[in-house]
């Protein structure tokens, strides 16, 4: 929930460059805290997570291929990928805009708006789900306006995308915001006095500086969107082969006691999200390197 919230800001300043002393520390408690950390981590996270891979390893290749090439599963993967990508892109554009407005401009209610950006993190996903569904259903406030225009949001892939946009909003804003805050005004002043227009400054100075963090934010939003469940299932309507997302497939396989099928799909999801996590970590290193190089 709060990965961006918690790391993006301090990380820029934290980590004083390598102060490695080899002699024993006078601070006590390493054995105790480290032991507890590793034990608790193994019990709560590592052993349960390994269960999925062990269970999946019982499957033979043909079985696995059979499960994953099922039309319903393939369509769900397609829907999840496309909607998550669309939502991440929308968030990339509007998240940058919101971060820009919050950092650069002064207007009444800015502080309030700034804290409301975290609402999707704080609001339980089920609540977000039923609220979005109520707003964008044909009888809802906004759904009723869009309906005569021929735009259906609820129970379509557009609705799924909308829910994912909601969920992903804070990721982009919160990764881009600190970078925009740290931008050196003097560089812009120099560029202006050398005759650069605002458009040139934005595309040649500001955009390259925020690009790494923008990419990170977009990929975080995408990763979160792939696995999202609670906020999507209400507005999607879960029409078979049409608006079923991958997490829903896992749930419905579980409900039919198809543990092998659920595990196979979940396994793919895990591999996907771990590779995304790895990619995002590399991206963040790149972003950190870029900001230090400036």
């Amino acid at each position: 929930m709060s990965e961006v919230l918690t790391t993006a800001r301090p990380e820029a300043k934290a980590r004083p460059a390598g102060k490695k002393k080899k002699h024993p520390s006078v601070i006590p408690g390493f054995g105790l805290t480290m032991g507890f950390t590793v034990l608790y981590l193994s019990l709560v996270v590592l052993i349960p997570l390994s269960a999925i891979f062990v269970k999946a390893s019982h499957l033979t290749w043909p079985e696995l291929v059979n499960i994953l090439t099922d039309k319903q599963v393939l369509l769900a993967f397609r829907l999840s990928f496309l909607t998550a990508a669309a939502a991440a892109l929308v968030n990339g554009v509007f998240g940058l805009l919101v971060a820009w407005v919050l950092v650069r401009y002064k207007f009444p209610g800015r502080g309030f708006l700034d804290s409301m950006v975290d609402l999707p993190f704080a609001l339980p996903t089920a609540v977000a789900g039923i609220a979005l569904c109520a707003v964008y259903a044909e009888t809802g406030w906004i759904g009723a306006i869009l309906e005569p225009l021929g735009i259906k949001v609820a129970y379509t892939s557009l609705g799924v995308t909308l829910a994912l946009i909601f969920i992903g909003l804070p990721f982009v804003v919160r990764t881009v915001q600190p970078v925009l805050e740290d931008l050196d005004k003097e560089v812009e002043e120099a560029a202006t006095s050398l005759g650069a227009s605002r458009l040139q400054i934005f595309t040649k100075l500001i955009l390259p500086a925020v690009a790494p963090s923008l990419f990170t934010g977009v990929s975080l939003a995408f990763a979160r969107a792939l696995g999202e469940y609670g906020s999507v299932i209400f507005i999607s309507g879960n029409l078979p082969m049409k608006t079923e997302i991958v997490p829903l497939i896992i749930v419905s396989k579980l409900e039919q006691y198809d543990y092998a099928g659920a595990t196979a799909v979940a396994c793919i999801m895990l591999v996907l999200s771990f590779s995304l996590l790895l990619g995002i970590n590399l991206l963040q290193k790149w972003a950190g390197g870029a900001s230090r190089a400036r």
Partner: protein
Amino acid sequence: MSAPTPTNIPPAPQAPRPSDDPSRPKLRRLDTKQAATSEPRWFQRVLIGVALLYLFLLLFVPLITVFASALEKGVAAYLHSFSDPDTLFSIRLTLLIAAIAVPLNLTFGVAASWAIAKFEFWGKNLLTTLIDLPFAVSPVVSGLIYVLLFGKQGWMGPLLDRHDIKIIFAVPGIVLATIFITFPMVARELIPLMEEQGKEEEEAARTLGASGWQTFWHVTLPNIKWGLLYGVILTNARAMGEFGAVSVVSGHIRGMTTTLPLQVEILYNEYNYVQAFSAASLLCFLALLTLAAKAVVEKRVERSANATVLK
């Protein structure tokens, strides 16, 4: 982004001036109110307007809808929703789950960040990454792993069956899934904070003869208290609001395994909108409280950071 338009450049004075000499490069005249590194006023307004509209449609309209739908049939109906025994039960269960999960993860978070921030050891980066793993896992998959472990067909299933212990489709499973989902939060809040503070103060305390616990209580804890508080608030909010993972392990048994978010789902699916949104409004209050707490804590941290600079 903001090509100067004729509208915001004041008309040039008519009288000939030395600067009108064509051989000299023309300087762009700027609005006196506008800094050289900013956009024209009208452009700022447009951007602010777009951002406001976007956030209004995406964040505020759904939030207002929850309260409007909860109060659709009046305050009496709203309050009456909470006399439903299933809803009352789900509130109590949610509080119980949070009361178990939050202290456990708090203890872990403090221990992990102490080990990671105050010591150098091999594999530190790996450990930090492993702690973050639950954030990368889809909530549904988080629930599934416990079903595979403790379910009827799971590893421990037969053993648990023999001793008549129920974990899946019972409260322990919900607690486990909640712990998994909220696992990294306190640690993620504390590790950067404690790394930034370094270990000089603790070392000084030890040199002056303080015991390990004394050092923690009197030196470290006062330094991290705001971050810790926010970590706990976040963990609590997430623990009370988790839906996907809990929904997989709970089995939706009314009056036995329905937490508040699951109760919202059940009521909504039964077209019992007023009650569903009334229950949802409680979770909205929780979210708004969390955001308010975050704003307060951020101010405190900023103030204490300024105070240390002044020292």
